[in-house]
C-alpha cells in the first residue's frame, strides 16, 4: 500500500500528464480526467490486484477495471503508464496518427490495460457485469471495478444493467459514479436531474456508498470499504463526489473544461500548480 504522500505525488504527475497530453494535440477532455485523478491513482496503486506485464485480456484471477465514460482517456492512459502497463513515453502519442492511445480507449491497437472500447456512453456497466459473470463461472474471487460518469446515467442501457445486476445479485462488481454534477451542456441538475440517486440504486437492490473522490485518503478508505461490502449478495456502487478540473484552479467549478484544451499560457499555469514529482513523460 502506498502512503498518502506517495499517492499525492503520483496524482500531481497524472494531472501534469493530462494537461500536457491534451495541450499537445489541442484536443481531448481535461475536466473529467482531472476530477478522477485520485480515484484512478488509488485504484491502480493500492486497491486492485493485477498483473500489468504481461497484460492478460481475460484478467483471470485479477481485479479488472472497465472505464465506461471513455472520454476521460487521458487520466486512464496516464494511470496505466504509471502502473507499468506501458512506458510513459508513449503518452506523447495521445490522439496522434498511428498511436495506441486513441482519442477514446480502444482494444484494436492492442494497448495493454484496455479490455473494451468506450466512448459511446452507457455501455461499460453491461460489459463489467458480463466480466463479473465470467468470473463467477470461473470461480475467480476477484472483483470487477467500473467507472461511469454521472451525466452518462442518462443513457437507458445503464438502468438495464443496474436492474440486471441487482436482480441477479452480481456482488463481485464495484461500480463508481463520478458525481461531478456536470456534463457538456451544463450542470446535470439543469439538464436532467438525478433526484435521489442513492435511493434509485438501492431500490434496484444495490449496496450504496458515498465518498469524497478528490482526497486520496478518502478514496483509499472508500474503496477498501467497498471491497469489504462486496460478495454479500448485492452489487456495490460508490457515489463519488468530485470537482471537474480538480487541481487546476481555472478549470475547477465549470463544465466548460469538459472537452477543451488549455492554451500555452493556461498550460504553464496548470503546471505551476502541479510541480513535477516523479518525472514528466
Amino acid at each position, binding site marked *: 500500500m502506498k502512503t498518502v504522500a506517495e499517492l499525492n505525488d503520483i496524482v500531481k504527475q497524472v494531472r501534469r500528464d493530462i494537461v500536457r497530453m491534451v495541450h499537445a494535440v489541442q484536443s481531448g477532455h481535461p475536466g473529467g480526467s482531472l476530477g478522477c485523478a485520485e480515484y484512478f491513482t488509488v485504484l491502480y496503486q493500492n486497491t486492485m490486484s493485477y498483473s500489468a506485464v504481461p497484460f492478460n*485480456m*481475460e*484478467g*483471470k484471477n485479477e481485479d*479488472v477495471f*472497465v472505464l465506461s465514460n471513455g472520454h476521460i482517456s487521458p487520466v486512464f492512459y496516464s494511470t496505466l503508464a504509471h502502473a507499468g502497463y506501458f512506458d510513459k513515453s508513449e503518452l506523447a502519442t495521445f490522439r496522434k496518427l498511428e498511436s495506441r492511445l486513441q482519442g477514446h480507449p*480502444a*482494444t*484494436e491497437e492492442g494497448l495493454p490495460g484496455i*479490455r*473494451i*472500447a*468506450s*466512448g*459511446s456512453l*452507457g*455501455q*461499460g*456497466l*453491461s*460489459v*463489467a*457485469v*458480463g*466480466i*463479473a*459473470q*465470467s*468470473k463467477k*463461472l*470461473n470461480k475467480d474471487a476477484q472483483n470487477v471495478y467500473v467507472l461511469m460518469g454521472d451525466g452518462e446515467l442518462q443513457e*437507458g*442501457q445503464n438502468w*438495464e*444493467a443496474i*436492474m*440486471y445486476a441487482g*436482480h441477479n445479485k452480481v456482488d463481485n462488481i464495484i461500480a463508481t459514479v463520478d458525481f461531478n454534477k456536470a456534463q457538456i451542456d451544463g450542470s446535470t441538475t439543469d439538464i436532467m436531474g438525478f433526484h435521489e440517486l442513492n435511493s434509485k440504486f438501492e431500490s434496484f437492490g444495490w449496496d450504496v456508498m458515498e465518498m469524497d473522490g478528490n482526497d486520496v485518503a478518502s478514496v483509499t478508505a472508500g474503496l477498501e470499504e467497498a471491497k469489504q461490502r462486496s460478495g454479500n449478495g448485492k452489487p456495490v456502487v460508490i457515489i463519488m463526489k468530485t470537482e471537474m478540473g480538480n487541481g487546476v484552479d481555472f478549470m475547477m467549478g465549470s463544465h466548460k473544461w469538459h472537452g477543451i484544451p488549455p492554451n500555452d499560457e493556461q498550460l504553464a499555469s496548470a503546471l505551476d500548480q502541479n510541480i513535477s514529482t516523479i518525472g514528466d513523460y
Partner: protein
Amino acid sequence: MVNTEVLEKKDTRSGFGAGLLELGRTNPEVVALCADLTGSLKMNAFEDEFPDRFFQAGIAEANMIGMAAGLATGGKIPFTGTFANFSTGRVYDQIRQSVAYSEKNVKICASHAGLTLGEDGATHQILEDIGLMKMLPNMVVINPCDYNQTKAATIAIAEHHGPCYLRFGRPKWPVFTDPNQKFEIGKAWTIQEGTDVTIFATGHLVWKAMEAANELEQQGLSVELINIHTIKPLDDAAILKSASKTGCVVTAEEHQMNGGLGDSVCQLLARNTPTPVEMVAVDDQFGESGKPEQLLDKYGLGTVDIVNAVQKVIARKNG
C-alpha cells in the same frame, strides 16, 4: 435436376437450438444469453441442461449485448439470442463499439428474420439486418438455408474466434442439406453446375431457387445454383468463377435489395468482371402481416420471380 421431393420440414431456429445444445455438451466455454424469447429461439434445452451457463437478460437487449462482450472478455464464448430486429437495429451501437470494434468473440444469433416471420408484421420483419451487420468491420455474417445447415453453422461459429452474426427464421422449411455436413465459413456451396446462368441464393430463398432451377431446366436452360450462406466474408473466387462461366447472374434473398447479398455480389462483379445481374430481393419497402408464402409472393420473392429474373438476365446477356 435437384431433388425437390420434400421429405421433411423443420424451422431453422430449431437447427440453432440443436446446435447450441450440442455445443453446450462439447465446449464448456460456450454460454448463452436470451432476452425473454427462450422458447422462440429454441434455447430451452440449453437452459435446462446448463442453467449456470444460461443468462436470462430480460427485455433488455442493449444490456445483453454488453454482457456478452464482457463474458467474451472473460474468455467465454457467448451466444446471444433474440429476434433479428432486436439483435441488430435495436442494439447497433452496442454491437459496433462493444463487440465489433472491441473484437469480442460474441455470436449474435437472430431468429425471425425477414418476411417469413409472417403475421407479426413489419415491426418484426427486419429486412435490413444483413446490410447493417456486414458493414461492421470484423463481423462475419451467415444466413443458412435449412435446419441442418443452421445447426452446422451454429457449431462452426463457435470454432471461429471473432464476432459473428447468424441469421435464421421462424417457418417450417424444407430440409434438404446433409445432416452430417461440415460447415465452412466463407465457402460457397455449389448445389448444381450449369452453363446458362448462375443463381446465388441465401437463406430460405435457396429452396425457392431450387424450385426455380427445376422449372428452368424443364425449359431447357442449364442453371448453376450456388448457395452463398456466408455473406461476409464473401467467397469472391467462387462467385467470379461462376459468373465468368455463365455470363449472367441472379441473386435471391429474403432481405432489402439495398445492403444484402445481391449488393455484395454486384460490388464484387462491378470491380472485377462486370456481368448482367438481376436481384430478387425486397425493393425498398417494409413488409406487412400475412402468411409466409403469401408475403414472399407479394414482395416478389417467390419461385416465379426467380424464374422471371433468370429469363430477363439471360435476355440481357444475349441482347
